[in-house]
């Protein structure tokens, strides 16, 4: 029986994908759930798995554009793995030599004729004195990169984005982390990071200023009743924003565990579209790379994004004295069409107050 392989659904807004890599050649044998090929959509790379065990037949090539639901090949379940092949009777009739041309599997033998037929680099021009060589290399933009580029430009053009700044004294949080790190890790098998504090503080500020977590849809303002917060993660393929769902129901340990899980998935390239969907607010931490101050760009259709930065000891005024404190600049970029300066600034001040006095988080302030 032949089991059809279809392009799996890849989220609401995705209708097509590009075959980015073929992991199992046509004609080879696959096991159930073995990785067959990789699809690249404008959101994420997704692996297609074998629906059954048997001989694989693929009807697509690398770089080919496919539609969601389209058939891209089949698995013939009646052809068994060679390893399980029963001892065959000596063949009566000599079978034809399987020629490379007749089988879709690529040849492992690069003969002189293949060498000669392979595309050649054009003759390198002899470097001339008046034409200094410009060393550079070229490659095609990935679909993900292209989408990121288009969306960033669209945000700049279609929103009234601006950024407000504040700073936060991290002493209190650092103190908690230092003091409770060991017991937190022992209890939860995960490190207590800064991000869980920021998510908690953001949640409190969003509850206080719901407009910051709202979105414009046509001429309507949509305010979510559930707080899904995205955290930007940098990967080799580009920036991704996995979303923590129902943050209001998560404790510190649950947040840290989910973040660790996302970081692992991002590194391995196994983040799914479901992980990236939705969200009413985004946090991005340029501080991991040492950024002191930046103006993040909105993650549409969201209306605001919080930028965290590097923690650096700076002299500040504390009770009429100059003190050295671990300081972080905060940046909140927001869509001025929806959010007034007052809300944006107060949101950030609220966040700052909760981060400087984390006990407030306990009191739901």
């Amino acid at each position: 029986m032949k089991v059809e392989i279809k392009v799996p659904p890849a989220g609401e807004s995705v209708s097509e994908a590009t075959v980015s890599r073929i992991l199992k050649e046509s004609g080879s044998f696959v096991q159930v759930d073995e990785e067959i090929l990789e699809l690249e959509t404008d959101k994420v790379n997704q692996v297609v798995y074998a629906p059954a065990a048997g001989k694989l037949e693929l009807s697509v090539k690398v770089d080919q554009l496919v539609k969601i639901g389209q058939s891209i090949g089949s698995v013939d379940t009646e052809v068994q793995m060679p390893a399980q092949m029963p001892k065959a009777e000596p063949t009566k009739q000599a079978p034809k030599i399987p020629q490379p041309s007749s089988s879709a599997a690529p040849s492992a033998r690069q003969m002189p004729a293949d060498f000669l037929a392979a595309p050649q680099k054009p003759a390198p021009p002899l470097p001339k004195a008046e034409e200094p060589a410009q060393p550079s290399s070229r490659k095609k933009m990935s679909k993900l990169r292209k989408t990121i580029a288009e969306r960033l430009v669209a945000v700049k053009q279609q929103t009234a984005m601006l950024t407000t700044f504040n700073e936060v004294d991290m002493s209190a949080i650092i103190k908690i982390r230092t003091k409770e790190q060991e017991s937190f890790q022992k209890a939860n098998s995960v490190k207590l990071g800064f991000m869980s504090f920021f998510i908690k503080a953001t949640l409190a500020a969003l509850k206080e200023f719901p407009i910051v977590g709202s979105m414009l849809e046509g001429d309507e303002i949509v305010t979510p009743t559930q707080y899904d917060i995205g955290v930007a993660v940098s990967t080799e393929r580009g920036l991704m924003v996995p979303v923590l769902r129902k943050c209001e129901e998560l404790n510190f340990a649950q947040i840290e565990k989910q973040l660790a899980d996302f970081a692992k998935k991002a590194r391995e390239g196994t983040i799914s579209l479901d992980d990236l969907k939705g969200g009413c607010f985004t946090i991005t931490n340029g501080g991991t790379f040492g950024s002191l101050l930046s103006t993040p760009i909105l993650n549409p259709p969201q209306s605001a994004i919080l930028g965290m930065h590097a923690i650096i000891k700076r002299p500040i005024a504390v009770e009429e004295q100059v003190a050295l404190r671990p300081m972080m600049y905060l940046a909140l970029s927001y869509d001025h069409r929806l959010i007034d300066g007052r809300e944006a600034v107060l949101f950030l001040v609220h966040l700052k107050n909760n981060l400087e006095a984390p006990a407030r988080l306990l009191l739901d302030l």
Partner: protein
Amino acid sequence: MNYEVLVIGSGPGGYVAAIRAAQLGLKTACVEKGLLGGTCLNIGCIPSKALLHSSELYSALGHTYAIHGIEVQGARFDFGKMMERKKGIVKSFNQGIAALFKKNGVTLYPGSAQLTSPTSVKVLGEELTAASIILATGSLPIDLPFLPIDEERIVTSTGALSLPKVPKRLLIIGAGIIGVELGSVYKRLGSEVVFLEFLDRICPTLDGSLSKAFQPLLEKQGLVFHLSAKVTGAKIEKEEIRILYEQQGASHQLSGDVVLVSIGRRPYTQGLGLEKVGIQLTEKGQIAINGRFQTSVPTIYAIGDVVDGPMLAHKASEEGVAVAELIAGLHPTVHYMAIPSVVYTNPEAAGVGLTEEETKKLQLQTKIGLFPFKTNSRAKCTGEEEGMVKMIADAQSDRLLGVHILGSHASELIGEAALALQKGATALDIATTPHAHPTLSEALKEAALALHGRAIHR
């Protein structure tokens, strides 16, 4: 017993395939009817290189040393000791392969293997099954009907590597690579060595101009070549063996104490039960394979001398690795353009890629760069000034098509060229690569520059 991979033959193709398969986690066995290591190790590359070096050291005493102002008197050699040393080297390699099999978990079955089905063989009455079978049975010397091989007076390379004493007169039929190597060994040790070659040049697989330049260098050492000579018969007498041949329409004869027949090798396909499972052969008697080394029975693969291509140990090893990786589901590539071929005489000759004759046959537009070793500074210092480097590149793209070296250490110098061809490098890539000074390798750089009319030292 059941295996995932079963290799028949433990030559440089078979044993490498078995070890690679085991490395990849496949349960692997290897069947060998003779000694581990096959022709290369026991009766080919390895023993011949041992004797070539021993004889070269002795020969150098008489010729090369004097050039450097070193006088040696009363130098003698002990042929028995040379042979013992050779045997010791071979034995250590036999043991080495056995140890490698053990280390990698390859099970060895001594004995002859016959295929009984696409997934089973019989070895000494025992039935072994395997999902994949690799035929790596190698090749045998071709003989002549009127010269029955006894490996004493009428020998193949096998006998020539184990003669009890140095023959007074050695007659060699076939001036190919094996012939000129073994001829060199015995010439250096005092034999009169005469060649009868059917073609009009020696070492016909070499690039034509290399072959032409090579012959006088060997003749200078006392080797005698009769080219375009067709051997027609033989008279085997008690004292000597007389070989009858025709040259330019006239009949001639030559006699020798020992006759070496080195006219080529044929694939080893007999007694394996190929016909029983329906494995097809090519017109040349090789096992027919597709681009993935599969025979007409897809579970049975074949590599090395038993399939098409040059009969070289390293070619078989490359194929052995590739076939094991294919079976394991990887995607290997064997680059046939980058398989070097070497003649281990003095000087050596080595080539990789296409010869000039082959590029002409393919009607390729080429540029050729030549550089002689006599203007190479290192060669001058060591006195190894014979020979040259010849480089052939595509006229448009500058991509290298072939590199041919005649000269001392050509076997080592050819590695750079093989890498260049494997990578599709251009002549300019070689020309712009820094080469240490003074080295013989600079001749490669200069040949690449010469190809663009830019050689510095010419």
